[in-house]
């Protein structure tokens, strides 16, 4: 029984589906990456799991129980913690206040501090004044304080220097292994992701293009990287006849 089981999910915004027929799973203690080009539907998939995007069909199960009927806040209380792309921190709060909101106590639990010792020194600083790396650390710590069973992290490396990013991955690895929680991430940096994760799902054009263990996927790294800097993963046929295209114009485009 998987911790998270997404089956044939179709979801999107205001009656426009962005992802279609997506299936994926995350086991306890596992670090899983969702890769794909910009606009492939990764973030939408994550938002559908945490309930911020409407689901048209398909199933989402946490610990074998369907969470379809739960509001986003209820899903969060059921154990899903989502660190979104924009981090959604509270800029006018201090670090202490953020932590207090997350865990009720003034100080973060000891085990959280073990993963992020630097957090202990930020104390009364305002979130808005933190550096990008510190903000990402706080976002992760805030989620961790809720002791989640599933941790979702979207574009952790956004706007961070590579060195900083490299520091976070081992921490995620340890969290998955030691806390027994599943970690699902979306990551732009393919090489970095492949170094740390257990399993990879690759999305393209709103659907799941490939899934497999990291060892299976590593030989295909060039193909995967192509999704970022090169040919499209799923080659699209370029219409050759002008007439044919005109017809598509009016309806499709």
């Amino acid at each position: 029984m998987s911790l998270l089981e997404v089956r044939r999910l179709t979801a999107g915004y205001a009656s426009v589906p962005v992802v279609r027929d997506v299936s994926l799973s995350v086991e306890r203690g596992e670090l899983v990456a969702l890769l794909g080009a910009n606009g492939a539907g990764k973030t939408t998939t994550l938002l559908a799991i945490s309930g911020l995007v409407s689901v048209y069909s398909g199933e989402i199960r946490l610990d074998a129980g369907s969470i379809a009927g739960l509001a986003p806040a209820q899903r969060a209380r059921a154990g899903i913690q989502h660190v979104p792309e924009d981090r959604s921190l509270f800029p006018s709060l201090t670090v202490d206040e953020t932590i207090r909101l997350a865990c009720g106590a003034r100080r973060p639990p000891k085990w959280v501090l073990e993963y992020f010792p630097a957090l202990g020194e930020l104390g009364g600083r305002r979130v808005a004044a933190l550096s990008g790396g510190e903000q990402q650390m706080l976002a992760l710590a805030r989620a961790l304080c809720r002791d989640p069973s599933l941790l979702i992290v979207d574009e952790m490396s956004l706007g961070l220097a590579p060195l900083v990013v490299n520091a976070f991955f081992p921490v995620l690895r340890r969290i998955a292994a030691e806390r027994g929680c599943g970690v699902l991430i979306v990551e732009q940096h393919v090489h970095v992701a492949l170094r740390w994760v257990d399993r990879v799902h690759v999305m393209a054009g709103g659907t799941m293009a490939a899934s497999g263990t990291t060892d299976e996927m590593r030989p295909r790294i060039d193909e995967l990287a192509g999704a970022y800097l090169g040919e499209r993963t799923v080659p699209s046929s370029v219409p050759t006849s002008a007439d044919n295209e005109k017809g598509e114009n009016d309806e499709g485009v």
Partner: protein
Amino acid sequence: MAGPLLRAEALCLHYGGVRALNEVDVEITPTELVGVIGPNGAGKSTLLDAITGFATPTSGALTFDGQDVLRRRPSERARMGIARTWQTLQLFEDLTVSENVRMAVPRRPKAVGVLPRRGGERAEHDALARLGIGGLADRMPGELSHGQRVLVGIARALAGDPKLLLMDEPAAGLDGSERDLLGEILRDVVASGTSVVLVDHDMPLVLGICDRLYVLDFGAVIASGAPRQVRNDPAVVAAYLGADDPETRDEERLQPSLPTEGAR
């Protein structure tokens, strides 16, 4: 014309301690398609805002068509021939497609309240026909697909016959064939005499159609040149794929390091 159409020199834009743009130099010559790429948050949209006047640079110089435009208002710059599109499209949802486009058709200076219908209709019809959406003229934007809406946004920007068209992620949300069509349209626009600055994440599109690229990262230009050059530039590869050089591959060295220094 001999000189560049647009020249930005040492453009800086800081807000709240964030350096959104840092000493950016950009030059656009007439009739060229220039791509601007870079990771999210690299300052691409801010650059467009600075050129169009929606964001005020902290320092630097900006000339368009030989005139200093740094302190001009956005509407003045628009009338000088700088048009733009938005990632969020910003269509006029209460107006029909043709009214959306007509809004950008320059009016005869005398007409204040009363509309000069005749002249405007021609230009607006041309702009729609050029993008193959003439059949949508009387529809409301809300009834259209995202791909069609993108085209309406472009048609509106083109209707004023701009010298420079700045586009913010037009390919976002388009499917493969729509992206190919977008590429053709942009080449066509450039061929007809308008320079285009294309900000987009779609690498195949940008690499495939642009004459020249600028790569931004952390608000600064880290590389520029022809697509083939840029594509193999190690700095660009690092910015996109995450550093994959031997130094950072050394996992053990990195294991204990903690994020104390943030990047902006």
